[in-house]
């Protein structure tokens, strides 16, 4: 069985996100970029399944400009067997992305597609669901446990009420949550090996994927800054001040 894992290049979680002064986007000048942390968890799970003999091959796929090859190489260094870059100059939104992943899924025929539950940049949490719908296959989202048994997978999901375990037929799309596993460190010699692993590039246009219907982003703005506080001497003064401001 093949496992397909989606990887997104995002601004690293340690970076303070800053909106460009003209509001045209987020400042990425000199900013550290990383693999989306949920995608790392997805890949870790795929690698563990392969190591447990449940899968033969792990393929990482990313959609984006050539800079995302850096993140694909990280995936290869972690242990993926090969990588596919779907080259797109435009930054894709979930529906277009799901369409692109569908084409790759049809081509590779994986038994399992594992994606992060969301990317930490736009927080959409839609791609896995849309891919499952377009592919006409079952979905199991927000997985915190994944057990494969023959043609089915038992997936424990993190839901509002607690944990829910469902069984899905394979092939299926699984999106993973934080508690599923802790991704491994990359071994230094594996970085060298990753340089020699295959990384195929396909153009988005060649796949015949339409990017129609993308939303236009009007403006970015940072959250309003918290105003400086004042010190009050006692409760009376606090109450008076709140009254003066018309808050009580």
């Amino acid at each position: 069985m093949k496992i397909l894992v989606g990887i997104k290049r995002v601004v690293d979680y340690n970076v303070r996100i800053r909106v460009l002064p003209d509001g045209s986007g987020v400042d990425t000048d000199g900013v550290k970029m990383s693999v989306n942390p949920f995608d790392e968890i997805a890949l870790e799970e795929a690698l563990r399944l392969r190591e447990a003999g449940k899968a033969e091959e792990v393929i990482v796929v990313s959609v984006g400009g050539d800079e995302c090859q850096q993140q694909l190489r990280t995936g290869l260094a972690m242990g993926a067997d090969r990588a596919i870059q779907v080259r797109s100059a435009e930054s894709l939104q979930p529906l277009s992305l799901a369409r692109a992943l569908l084409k790759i899924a049809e081509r590779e025929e994986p038994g399992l597609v594992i994606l992060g539950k969301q990317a930490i940049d736009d927080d959409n949490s839609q791609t896995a669901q849309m891919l499952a719908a377009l592919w006409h296959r079952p979905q199991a989202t927000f997985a915190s446990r994944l057990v494969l048994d023959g043609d089915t997978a038992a997936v424990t999901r993190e839901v509002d009420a607690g944990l829910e375990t469902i069984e899905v037929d394979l092939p299926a799309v699984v999106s993973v949550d934080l508690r599923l596993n802790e991704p491994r460190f990359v071994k230094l010699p594996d970085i060298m090996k990753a340089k020699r692993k295959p990384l195929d590039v396909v153009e988005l246009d060649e796949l015949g994927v339409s990017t129609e219907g993308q939303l236009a982003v009007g403006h970015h703005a940072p959250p309003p800054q918290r105003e400086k506080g004042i010190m009050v001497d006692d409760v009376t003064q606090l109450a008076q001040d709140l009254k003066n401001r018309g808050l009580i």
Partner: protein
Amino acid sequence: MSEREIMEYDVIIVGAGPAGLSCAIRLKQKKPDLMVAVIEKSSEIGAHILSGAVIEPEPLDELLPGWKDSPPPICIPVENDEIWLLSQQGRRRLPTPPQQKNHGNYIVSLGAMCAWLAEKAEALEVDIFPGYAASEIRFTEDGAVGGVIIGDMGVGRDGQPKDTYMQGIEIHAPVTILSEGVRGHLSKQLIRKFELDKESDPQTYGIGMKELWRVQPGKSKPGLVQHTAGWPLDSHTYGGSFIYHLDKDRIAIGFVCGLDYQDPEFVPFEAFQQMKHHPMVHELLEGGEILSSGARAIAEGGYQSLPNTEMPGALIIGDAAGTLNVPKIKGTHQAMRCGILAADHLAETGAPQGFNARLRDSDVVKELHKVRNIRPGFYKGFWRGFLRAAIETVTAGKLPTTLKVHADDTALKKLDGYTPPDRQWVDRDLVPRDRLASVYFAATEHDEDQPVHLQILEPDVCTTRCVTEYNNPCTRFCPAQVYEMVEENGSKALQINSANCVHCKTCDIKDPYQIINWVTPEGGSGPNYQNM
């Protein structure tokens, strides 16, 4: 424990700063077949680099002719120089000494420039590994340096392996180059082991703190280089500030002060923040936004403190040895020259032997010799230092005397009988409010569940002698507030917030008992500086 995995290279370079990367590039230019690797503890190249920085471009011209066609991301020609002597409210323009004339130099982000140099090195097939800390030296059977050992990852705070445990590998190489920067973790051990400093004066340091700001449109004058001396420092504390005007309304502002300061209650971070509230600086920053902040120690000993830079199997280059030119306030060109020189030497001879003599005969050391008396001239106060600097400059360092350099850890006065100077400090309103707020802009990150990388060799001293003698200066000199004294059941205890550490090494240097030992944390930990 299983045998460590081994990788072999011809040359292993520790630290991807200007020295290490210049060395790697030059090695591959001269000997393309050499296998060269660079190990870097920061998660990305440049993420632990912090500098002003105004650089002299001559070594870049030598290393990468035509570099101006595709320059580093931030690279602004210097247009003007200003030096100001500040009082709390006033200022007086001083003549610019020749060492500080910056015509022909460039303002860069050294972090961004190192990332740019790393790309050049990778294009020459240098293997660069960010996110891995060289934690130990690997010695060969005959006692020579034979490479490095990468720190284990996934070790818990208790020292036990976690689920993610990954054993560090050994990198074997006939030549190891230490370019770790100031007070390098491995360099420090090797200097001690091979007694490389037995004929030199002790190294002396400064602490440099820096912030990157975006100011209101129109306030920044790209290419303007400003330096200040005087307030908020007293005349017996060496230091001053830099204000470099970049493009896109950005200002690099920083403050450097000698770690040979005497006042046990002095807080370098507070001095920096005070300087920002001088009317001249406050006007510039008001209404702006802080983008990034950080701190790093600086080697100030120069000529007198330069250790022997070679030993069996290894070389020490750049600020790990201490080649910064203090009066120029520049170390990058010196570090790069060191790297180039080391590469030339290895390409010609294949071994470290003879490098030290070659370095001492080079422009690197000639430059240091010329200005050797200027920094120690300030030991007796600002004005005597100023005068000495003028004399040394006029005579180009040709006077026969060489002043001794003193150590920083013995400079601190004991509380008993010491009266601190009146600092005339003002109320502050610019961000960051305090050191914790500042650390936030350094984006520093350490997995909390790892061994504490700040080792206290004699913890009893902290709660006994140090309390009465110095009132725990570590709680003040650390720019990231890593050290805190907390009350526990009525008695004081030292709490080390190691996750805040920005790897500046000040504690390792300034601690008066020399019982703080800075070791490398898990690779990839530490600050994530952007354009610093």
